[in-house]
């Protein structure tokens, strides 16, 4: 195994692990804020949870971008062969 492959594997793992930190914190905050809003105003729960779902999927996309980068490094790396 050469150094490029080694570096690619390490950086793929780092991309996913560090890329998951931000979205995890953000999703926690978003859900906490939504819970707060629903507790204050239960009659708006439908609208809040619909917007929450869309927002969560948007946030999750950031982690998915990192996953795509990791898979690019592992499977479609132009520097390897």
């Amino acid at each position, binding site marked *: 195994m050469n150094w490029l492959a080694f570096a690619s594997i390490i950086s793929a793992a780092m991309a996913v692990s560090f890329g998951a930190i931000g979205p995890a914190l953000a999703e926690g905050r978003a859900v906490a804020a939504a819970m707060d809003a629903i507790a204050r105003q239960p009659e708006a729960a439908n609208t809040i949870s619909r917007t929450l779902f869309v927002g969560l*999927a948007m946030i999750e*996309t950031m982690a998915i*971008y990192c996953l795509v980068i990791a898979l690019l490094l592992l*499977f*479609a790396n132009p520097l390897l062969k």
Partner: protein
Amino acid sequence: MTSPLSSVALFHLGPAPITAGVLATWAIMAVLVLGSILATRRLSLIPSKLQAAFELVVATVDGQIRDTMRVEPAPYRAFIGTLFIFIFVANWSSLLPGIEPPTAHIETDAALALLVFGAVIWFGIRAGGVRGYLATFASPNPIMIPLNFIESLTRTFSLLVRLFGNVMSGVFVIGIVLSLAGLLVPIPLMALDLLTGAVQAYIFAILAMVFIAGAVNEENPDAGTSIKRIAS
């Protein structure tokens, strides 16, 4: 393990290689078109159960367009509705054994994102003329022209990577868990995948609406602002 980024050609149609994803796309298109033709063949003022169900779908799409774009939904119903229903059916087609959702391949998503990119230009020019459409790049002020121009490209790319990444990662994770843990274990993940598929279809349609609304209604700039703020 095969790469999730490449797809294998099943056979060649002239010079064009046909992959499993393309075949699945054709099958979904045939089912949707034939289903729509059969469902709308005998429309009556007092709807049957089938017609009522389909009217419910159309009314829901109309309501979403009205809520998000704040315009009359008629010119956009066909495009947005087709986009949503196609992506939804494509994401859920993994329920049938042996079929990989076509949206898990990057070329299908690239085609869909290109359609949205073209539709923004088409609807923008149809609403305000070429001058009016180009003027939307200069809002809120002319300093933003390069940024708005780059944004119109990058948001198309992010639309493509978002759908591809979400659907592909679901398929990929199920494959990994299946090879590690065996039969029946990935069922909860598949259920989660169905939820993700539905939400991603909804988001793709909503974002297409927001992008089109941004090019169409200059006099009503607050259309879809709450979603747009999340998206950007």
